[in-house]
């Protein structure tokens, strides 16, 4: 009797574990023929960007239960920093065709942007959020909204209210043929880079001491503080990583779209946040999954001529999920205690 229970339970768990990969494969398998290869690749790329941004939302929420409203704008600033670095420091005006040069430039671009944005994110945390750690919950949320507005306007001040072009370092002409369609190498590179970063994050969280500290802190801050985890440092690192990823998303955005604007952060930020909610806020794998889902919905909507409604659909999804399934698709660890 007891053994039967055990086996059926472990079979159930196996099924539970497989649910996600099976779902993903099904999802991709269905959307590929519907969207066609061009749009499919497009959706994957956009999804990678959303996923990178969503990770920052979800990590910060997981650890201090703050909807870091300014995070979308951190991503936006990241895209400007990337633009600045590639056009000023690297002196690039268009694409770089010399392969070793290109590799070095892109690597440098990622490294510098991630570093700068990580610092900016940590600075915001230190100045605007840390003093409010014990304040009523609305206070840091309101502050975050304020920070978001300030970031937008600083950028608007320096770069103007119009769309700004960003050098597309990777030549868009380079492509490979997949079943009759042309898939730009750029997309493959962008998707690959994003997935690699997400993978690195997962490894960091599950394998390193700091990653473990982050997880325990998000489960119970007071208890982990008693166990000797340096809370301030852990939260700071969370912001460093989250903002660094947003910076990476900024680089990717610039490489792929070739432009950016001060208003980029608000709507894409909200969409990335929706992605985090969709996946189960606080859950890093969920955030990545959510990012791709949102992108597929958006790209799908415009593929069928409803592009103008894409935003409305995504926000409706946000409302529906928060109301009926606040734990998201994959569930979140931060269950509500009464």
């Amino acid at each position, binding site marked *: 009797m007891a053994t039967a229970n055990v086996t059926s339970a472990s079979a159930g768990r196996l099924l539970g574990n497989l649910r996600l990969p099976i779902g993903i494969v099904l999802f991709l398998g269905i959307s590929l023929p519907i969207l066609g290869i061009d749009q499919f690749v497009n959706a994957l790329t956009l999804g990678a960007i959303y996923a990178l941004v969503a990770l920052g939302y979800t990590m910060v929420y997981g650890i201090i*239960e*703050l*909807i870091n409203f300014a995070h979308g704008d951190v991503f936006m600033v990241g895209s400007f920093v990337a633009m600045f670095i590639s056009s000023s420091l690297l002196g690039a005006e268009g694409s770089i065709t010399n392969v070793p040069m290109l590799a070095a430039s892109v690597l440098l671009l990622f490294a510098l942007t991630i570093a700068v944005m990580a610092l900016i994110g940590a600075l915001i945390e230190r100045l*605007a959020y840390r*003093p*409010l750690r*014990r*304040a*009523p*919950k*609305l*206070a*840091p*949320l*309101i*502050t975050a*909204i*304020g*920070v*978001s*507005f*300030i970031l*937008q*306007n*600083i950028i*608007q*001040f320096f770069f103007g*209210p119009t769309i700004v072009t960003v050098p597309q370092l990777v030549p868009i002409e380079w492509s490979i043929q997949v079943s009759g369609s042309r898939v730009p190498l750029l997309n493959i590179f962008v998707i690959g880079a994003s997935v690699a970063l997400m993978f690195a994050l997962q490894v960091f969280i599950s394998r390193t001491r700091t990653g473990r500290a982050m997880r325990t802190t998000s489960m119970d801050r*007071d208890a982990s503080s008693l166990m000797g985890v340096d809370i301030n440092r852990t939260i700071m690192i969370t912001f460093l990583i989250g903002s660094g990823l947003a910076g990476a998303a900024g680089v990717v955005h610039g490489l792929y779209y070739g432009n950016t604007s001060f208003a980029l952060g*608000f*709507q894409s930020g*909200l969409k990335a*946040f*929706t992605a985090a*909610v969709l996946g189960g806020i606080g859950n890093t794998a969920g955030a990545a999954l959510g990012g791709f889902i949102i992108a597929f919905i958006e790209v799908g909507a415009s593929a069928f001529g409803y592009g*103008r*409604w894409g*935003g*409305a659909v995504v*926000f*409706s999804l*946000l*409302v529906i999920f*928060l*109301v009926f399934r*606040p734990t998201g698709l994959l569930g979140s660890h931060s269950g*509500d*205690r*009464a």
Partner: protein
Amino acid sequence: MTRIADAVTGPFAPVRAFFRRHRSLGIFVGVALLSIALPLLTRVPPFDGIQSTNAWVNAFTTAAIYAMLAMGLNVVIGFAGLLDLGYAAFFALGGYTYALAASPFSGIHLPFWPMLLAGGIVGAIFGVLLGAPTLRLRGDYLAIVTLGFGEIVPITLMNADKFTDGVNGIGGIDKPSIPGILQFTLINPWPMYGLVLVLFTLVMIMIYRLEDSRLGRTWDAIREDELAAESSGVNTVIAKLQAFAVGASIAGIVGVVNAAKITIVTPDQFRFAVSISALAAVVLGGMGNTIGVATGAFIIYLFQSILLKQLNTLVENFNIPVLNQIDFLEFQYVLYGIVLVLMMLKRPQGIFPARRRMREFAPLKIGKGGLK
């Protein structure tokens, strides 16, 4: 019901004591005096040099409209403690209600006065529509849901061309009139000034009455301790819903007035920044303090529309290099951001704190503690 009877002292003690007892009269007299004093003030230097009296009166009217919005939002945030980031949506719905009911676009020309009520009702309906499913959510989730709603409404207005004429918006909206007596025009700002101030007075009186009522107490209780309020027999969802509906209907009414004043509505007038400007007024004035919030709105509005504009002309006149390239009006948004951040960090209770909020924001409120 009488509130805490702090002893009234000072030179005007009898007057103040009188108005404390008759607060509605006090608000009426106060707004009346102010509405006379402000235009007079614009005739003396330095104010007369800035713009014409008519332009000033127009600015005061807009400021009062903005102040009403802030007072309405304060019912939701300050009284009930719910962070509503999509408040501009209700403002938009009020505006479009009137635009559809009285413009060449729809071909319908209903009179203005009943539409005030209609705007309030439309606001309330959408308030309930948004609030009913979401008010069980935790505070920060509610904030983000309302934010989503605040985005959906302008997007819908923009895309539902057939009903709203999309990005162009609806223009040529009818101006109010009192048949046979008075026709409001775009050139003469005074009738609108009068109308808005009467409305302002009414809204303020109503909000103070609500604050002192059974419902106002209920909101206080919920904000302080939701579980305890439920255990005192309060249906918290209904009480919050009422706050939402009241706030939304004020925004709806103000939307109607605003549409009638500027005679055009476009989706762009109701972006997120509008919700945030109202939030900034609430935070600056002091959450929960009606007069404080109205004052906060006046300060922010006059600062951005007069001071920043003045700065523009000043720099232009003196032809200061670099600076004359800058449009200082763009700084109003950064202003909202700075107000929000600085106030939360340095003075969360606002410049005119409500009595109750002083304590709430007292430092170090460590953990809520479990349910014991």
